């Protein structure tokens, strides 16, 4: 079977010594930042993007992906032990996880979180391996109108579902497209929005925008708040869950995986939404039902499985269609483009070693994470004592040296600082910057395909609605807009979605 031949190729790539090392570095960093509050995967990936310029494309993606799903593991550790979600996706884990810890059952809670994540990670990765090629094959029949409609759908979805208002999300996405327009227009050779400034001719490097908006802006905003972190430590005794724990968790883990796999693929929804949805599903329909919220193991198993499944399946649209569903996935796509790989359905046929190597490395990484997390838990908890005043200079050093090393250009460092100030203003005005990177990455693709679509139709925009697949995407886009404007949904969203930027 094809799948096995492909997986064999993936094993070859993922088990090369270099890539195993990148995977280990990725998941270790991911666990670390998952535990540290105030620094999440989107910041870390932004800061580390310049470092991946020198790696192979597969090595770069393997490491960055490890950071992303590793953070889902780490986030649960702090949620359970100190009632503080390291990541937005672990917010609901606090509810039952921390209560279990208070009842002296921190060990089993951590173990179930890790086991659930492992099961979900493996299933999510298998879904990627099975569904990915089929989706890519289907997408090969797409031409310009379909690509335009698809990219539009992803952007509307991501900006509508983000925390805060959909209008603000849309504004961020459009601003991202605008930043992407800076530089020489590929089809006419006209420099746009460069104002005669030479360094802008080639456009603004994606890593610079990400670094400013996420890393520097976040530092500025976090430095305003006083450092009020007191950690009351909880002793972790006996990590092994009992047979009863395992039996009670089996169904919630599988249900959480299903929920997470579904939400992971959708644009805009992500790990945080799926963890919340999985928790609500358990509460409504699970056997634990009423006990949820009092320290039930099911309340840890379901959301932790869901967020990790979503972290894996989010790669499906990114890798097979070239359409990222969230800010983090947009960064992943940016990392591919840095290496000259044009994202889209042809990635799988043209760079099979990249796709399959990444898929297999996720299996490897998920196993590494269990090993890293369970026996070493005491070491990780010590990280909570690291104060932010030690952390942020380190982030700044990596950001500045990384940006400078891109082109050895001081102008780039200045631009990053400027985007830091802009990002700080966005935070002050409560704009979520994640749709902006999405717009930045998808913008050129939108313009290119919009132009081509209208060339095909001789200037008639109805082509977007008369071709069946493109019409379906446009209809879904319209549906998302309508649903988002319904007052009931808006109210529910405010309560439900903490943060889907990650």
């Amino acid at each position, binding site marked *: 079977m094809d799948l096995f031949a492909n997986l064999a190729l993936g094993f070859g790539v993922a088990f090369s010594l270099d890539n195993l090392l990148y995977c280990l570095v990725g998941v270790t960093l991911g666990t670390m930042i998952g535990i540290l509050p105030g620094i999440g995967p989107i910041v870390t990936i932004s800061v580390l993007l310049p*470092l991946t310029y*020198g790696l192979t494309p597969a090595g770069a993606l393997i490491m960055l992906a490890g950071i992303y799903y590793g953070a889902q593991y780490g986030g649960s550790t702090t949620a359970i032990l100190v009632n503080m979600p390291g990541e937005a996706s672990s917010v609901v884990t606090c509810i039952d996880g921390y209560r279990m810890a208070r009842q002296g059952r921190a060990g089993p809670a951590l173990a179930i979180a890790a086991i659930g994540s492992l099961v979900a990670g493996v299933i999510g990765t298998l879904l990627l391996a099975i569904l990915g090629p089929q989706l890519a094959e289907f997408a090969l029949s797409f031409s310009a109108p379909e690509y335009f409609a698809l990219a539009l759908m992803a952007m509307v979805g991501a900006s509508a579902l983000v925390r805060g*208002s959909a*209008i*603000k999300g*849309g*504004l961020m996405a*459009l*601003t991202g*497209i*605008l930043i992407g*327009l800076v530089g020489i*227009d590929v*089809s*006419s050779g*006209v420099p*746009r*929005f460069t104002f005669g400034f030479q360094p802008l001719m080639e456009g603004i490097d994606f890593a610079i925008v990400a670094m400013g908006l996420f890393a*520097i802006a976040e*530092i*500025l905003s976090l*430095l*305003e708040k006083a*450092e009020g972190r007191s950690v009351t430590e909880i002793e972790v005794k006996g990590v092994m869950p009992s047979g009863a724990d395992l039996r009670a968790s089996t169904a919630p883990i599988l249900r959480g995986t299903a929920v997470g796999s579904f939400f992971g693929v959708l644009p805009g929804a992500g790990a945080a939404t799926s963890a919340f949805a999985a928790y609500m599903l358990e509460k409504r329909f699970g056997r634990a039902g009423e006990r949820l919220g009092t320290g039930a193991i099911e309340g840890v198993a379901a959301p932790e499985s869901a967020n990790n499944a979503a972290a894996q399946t989010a790669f499906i649209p990114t890798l097979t269609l070239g359409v990222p569903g969230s800010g983090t996935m947009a960064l992943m796509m940016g990392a591919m483009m840095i290496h000259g790989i044009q994202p889209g359905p042809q990635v799988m046929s043209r760079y099979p070693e990249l796709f399959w190597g990444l898929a297999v490395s996720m299996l490897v990484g998920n196993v590494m994470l269990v090993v890293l997390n369970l026996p070493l838990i005491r070491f990780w908890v010590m990280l909570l004592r690291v*104060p932010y*005043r*030690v952390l*942020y*200079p*380190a982030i*700044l*050093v*990596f950001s*500045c*040296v*990384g940006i*400078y*090393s891109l082109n*050895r250009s*001081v102008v780039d*460092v*200045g631009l*990053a*600082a400027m985007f*830091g*100030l802009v990002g*700080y203003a966005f935070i*002050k*005005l*409560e*704009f979520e910057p994640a749709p902006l990177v999405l717009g930045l990455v998808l913008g050129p693709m939108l*313009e290119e395909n*919009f*132009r081509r679509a*209208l*060339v095909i139709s*001789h*200037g*008639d*925009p109805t082509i977007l609605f008369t071709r069946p697949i493109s019409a379906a995407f446009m209809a879904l886009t319209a549906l998302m807009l309508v649903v988002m404007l319904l007052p009931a949904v808006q109210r529910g969203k405010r309560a439900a979605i903490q943060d889907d930027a990650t």
Partner: protein
Amino acid sequence: MLLNRNFLGGLLFIALGLATIAVARGYPMGSAMRMGPGYFPQMIGAGIAILGLALAVQGALAHAAAEERVAGIAFRPITAVMAAIAAFAWLIEGWGLLAAVTALIVLARLSRSEGSTLELLLSVLALNAIAMLVFVTGLNMTLRVGPW
């Protein structure tokens, strides 16, 4: 009281949208069938201005509750971090990595008064070592290390 986030943000984006259209009008427009480099940017500018207007109207209609108002800006961390990055940019070419990283850390730490001098010294040493290890030794980047 119109000083709430949405109203201010809306105004900002109306301005950005209009400025985008103004600049993009300088590029050839083309036709829908053969779009020039000005076509798409004008659409984007219009979109930004329209959504900005919607946001401003939303802000103007809403009762400006206290929490909706823009929170104060803390100038000390901004100044410290920006000065730190500027010092880094100024030092990296002529004085090299070690000087630039040290200045970056020392200035950035000025945004807060807590923490001992020993801690500062240790983080300067550790971060210089890490930066050398990662960028120069690990990634083989040809960066200037010192002024020599």
